[in-house]
């Protein structure tokens, strides 16, 4: 589904990713772990198309298409969706309006036509229930005045409504208490499907107790230095990243 080959990325002259290679197949859940500054968030940001990241070498393909050639919105329309670590506030724009615009933009781009309003409302209400969110969320401005936990839940709500093929979640666990993390993890788990892949970027192992990954990659200094199954994350928890760095060195 997603193939990243020898990816080199520079931000303001500093090389952050230094030859990253990664393959994600449909149905899989991958976790990328690593110390601060290793380039974890850079990977998902580059795939999503954020400005300010210069790809100097390597390729990213999604279902055979060159992702780096696509506009930001085209990537989302193709089924690549990024859940933000720090979702931005958009004053005056209702949450429900953003959801509807996004869903319909994606559907129209795929030639499916806009979803009829009653069907849309039914879909959203069902997903809201899943995320244990009150309907009043829909009428509030996007992320405005949301607590940290509410913002993260809102990101997952968008995932549930937009149903991407590849969901990339950047530090979706940061700043969550244990109850909120369970709700978020339940939401993510409900996304698991044969035809969908999930890429988790996280600093801590604890999220992976709730969302058990198929593969864990350790990212250190812009490269994946080790890949394993969920057990690897537990080892990291016990020994820290330094142990890995030493063993690689």
């Amino acid at each position, binding site marked *: 589904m997603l193939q990243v080959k020898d990816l080199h990325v520079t931000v303001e002259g500093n090389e952050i990713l230094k030859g990253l290679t990664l393959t994600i197949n449909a149905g899989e859940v991958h976790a990328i772990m690593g110390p601060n500054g290793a380039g974890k968030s850079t990977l998902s940001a580059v795939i999503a198309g954020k400005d300010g990241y210069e790809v100097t070498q390597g390729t990213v393909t999604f279902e055979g298409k060159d992702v780096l050639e696509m506009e930001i*919105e085209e990537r989302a329309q193709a089924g690549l*969706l990024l859940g933000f670590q720090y979702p931005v506030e958009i*004053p*005056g724009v209702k949450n429900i309006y*953003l959801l509807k*615009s996004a869903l319909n*933009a*994606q559907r129209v781009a795929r030639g499916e036509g806009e979803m009829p309003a009653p069907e849309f409302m039914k879909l959203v209400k069902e997903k809201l229930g899943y995320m244990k969110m009150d309907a009043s969320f829909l009428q509030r401005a996007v992320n405005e005045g949301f607590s940290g936990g509410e913002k993260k839940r809102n990101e997952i709500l968008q995932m549930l409504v937009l149903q991407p093929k590849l969901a990339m979640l950047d530090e979706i666990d940061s700043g969550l208490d244990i109850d909120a993390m369970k709700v978020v993890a339940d939401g993510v788990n409900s996304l698991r499907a044969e035809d969908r892949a999930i890429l988790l970027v996280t600093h801590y192992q604890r999220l992976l107790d709730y969302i058990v990954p198929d593969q864990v990659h350790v990212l250190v200094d812009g490269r994946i230095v080790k890949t394993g199954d969920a057990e690897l994350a537990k080892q990291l928890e016990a020994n820290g990243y330094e142990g890995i760095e030493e063993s690689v060195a």
Partner: protein
Amino acid sequence: MASEEMEQLVRREYKDGFVTDIESDTLPPGLDENTIAFISKKKGEPEWMLEWRLDAYRQWLKMEAPSWAHLDYPPIDYQSISYFSAPKRPEDRPQSLDEVDPKLLETYEKLGIPLHERAALAGVAVDAVFDSVSVATTFKKQLGEAGVIFCSISEAIRDYPELIKQYLGTVVPVADNYFAALNSAVFTDGSFVFVPEGVTCPMELSTYFRINAANTGQFERTLIICESRAQVSYLEGCTAPMRDENQLHAAVVELVALDDAYIKYSTVQNWYPGDENGVGGIYNFVTKRGDCRGDRSRISWTQVETGSAITWKYPSCVLRGKDSIGEFYSVAVTNGRQQADTGTKMIHIGEGTRSYIVAKGISAGRSDQSYRGLVKIGPRAKGARNFTQCDSLLIGDKCGAHTFPYQEIGNSTATIEHEATTSKIGEDQLFYCQSRGISEEDAVSMIVNGFCKDVFQELPMEFAVEAEALLNVTLEGAVG
């Protein structure tokens, strides 16, 4: 030529001036007392009205154009303007929409302007302004039954001279400012509304006006009076870019609210802003003022300003009556090379008066925009309160936004709150929306409309929908 002879000539010209060919439809460029006499006569005005105009003109001659605004434009040659021109004759106008600039039609399409209105706005010669005539007749009947007078200011001067004498120029005195004085001397038309005691105007004064407004002149004069406990909602302007050959517009609007009266005045202004280099755009110098003359009266200004090359406009409220309320809600958008210096004045005179100001400025392209607001609290305005919120949004990095808040507080019991923000349209906000599959253009319009929401919700429903569409069209291509 000796100066004595010259003087004689001038005097003779003045004396003979009054016999200028009254049959002619258009005056040659130039402004003197003859011009004013011509206009007054053309309008069939009584003698006192001519005197009123001449008084304004003589005061105007002694005044100087204001230079304090944050605007940059070449000096205006007032002798190069024609001050009276009848509407073009039908045979001189486009005969059908096929002859109209396709770009203009495209804009109407995007704005969702009803088909039957497009022709009128584009200046096409249409028989008897289509079905709006019957609509207008129905409206007039309904208004008449309620006792509401709604007519052109020229008609009002002829038919309701007592009301005109009582109120005209009492809110904006003839010599209030340079442009107001000019307007007082040479105004050619505008609207008059009178809502008698206890009457709530049975309809929003809009649809009918919108069509007629397409031909209103460059020096518009509007007077709205609400007697005790009367109410009216008045909509001015149109979202469609109107064709107009006059570059200088200097309107005066006066509102009078007596005890417990409520006037809501909404404007959507979209005059031609000029081409991308700013050539040919309209200069819009407007004086709008509401007088809350009665106790507990309320005047509310809501404006959406997107057009004109230059905008100089400060709708204001004089809060004279005890516990009276003044409100100003504004969205001003500038793009290309547009310049706008706009804001409001709230003059608190009476006890317990309150005012609210919500101003949203959006600058894009190479445009420049200023908010200028005055809150003045007089010594007798015990317990007066003001709340001001003033937000600027920048799109791109070649535009400018400035805020000039002035406060003059004359007593210690007043409460003043001021909030101001300036933000650049967030790269992060754009990325967030786009990464959800929304195109950049739609994302910008979503963010900008969100930014303006506090003001749009003050607009009458239909107008609000149009205003959103207008904003999107105005900002087309502003990013990227």
